[in-house]
């Protein structure tokens, strides 16, 4: 149980862990020791209480400090950079798909000359692509400007009127 407790503690932000992890583990160890002689139901309730307490506490602390990230181990993407080669490859694939669709459309016209000609798809596709790209660039621009302006830092400033009054 202590092992599981220690693992769950890693869900807290690192600053919180530096401050309280040892104390929490010590208190948990004492509480667990006191629980050993008691019946199964009490021990089960103790385990549930501790696990839910740590999970809700970790969630609360992560919400209080949204700029701190959950430790994701090898899934952590902090150092990940999207490779430029991937963008080139994706554009090549997109080009291939566009050519294939256009060839298919030409074939359908060729095989059914008297039938209805399918509408050209590319104006709508281009418009949608432009719209999505525009929205993405605008969103990124807003976030970038907010980050430069330090808006989130201003929001996190605590105004403690009574604290000033007392000091």
């Amino acid at each position, binding site marked *: 149980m202590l092992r599981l407790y220690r693992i769950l503690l890693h869900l807290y932000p690192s600053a*919180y862990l530096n*401050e*309280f992890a*040892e*104390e*929490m*583990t*010590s*208190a*948990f160890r*004492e*509480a667990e020791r006191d629980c050993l002689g008691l019946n199964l139901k009490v021990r089960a309730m103790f385990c549930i*209480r*501790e696990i*839910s*307490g*740590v*999970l*809700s*506490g*970790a969630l*609360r*602390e992560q919400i209080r400090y949204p700029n701190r990230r959950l430790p994701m181990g090898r899934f952590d993407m902090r150092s990940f950079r999207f490779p430029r080669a991937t963008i080139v490859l994706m554009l090549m694939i997109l080009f291939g798909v566009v050519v294939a669709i256009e060839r298919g459309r030409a074939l359908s016209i060729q095989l059914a000359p008297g039938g209805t000609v399918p509408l050209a798809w590319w104006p709508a596709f281009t418009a949608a692509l432009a719209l999505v790209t525009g929205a993405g660039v605008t969103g990124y621009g807003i976030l970038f400007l907010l980050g430069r302006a330090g808006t989130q830092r201003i929001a996190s400033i605590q105004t*403690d*009127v*009574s*604290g000033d*009054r*007392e000091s």
Partner: protein
Amino acid sequence: MSLYDISVDDIYMERLSLTEPVLMVLLSLAERPRHGYAIIKDVEQLSGGSVLLSTGTLYGALQRLLERGWIEGVKEEKNSRDRRTYRLTSRGRRNLQREFERMKRLTKLASIRISRSEA
């Protein structure tokens, strides 16, 4: 009489959501300084077993109270690596006192209203 008949001092009272666990922690520390596990045991005893604090809940409450300066932590002489004793500061004691004044007013108001509705 209204619950919101507030004095000038009350205007400056720090707002901290005094949930039941936080209130019990403050009550426990009002008697004397205690370390984490001692607070858990004392709160259990104080509430007659109805409030059982987990370590996660306790340390969340302690952190908020430390940030507000309502309590302070003191390292114990022996085994100081992982143990700290917490005690109520003068600010914390004053705010706790005010909170109980507010609760008293609420209780008084409630008893007036209940007796009025019974009559």
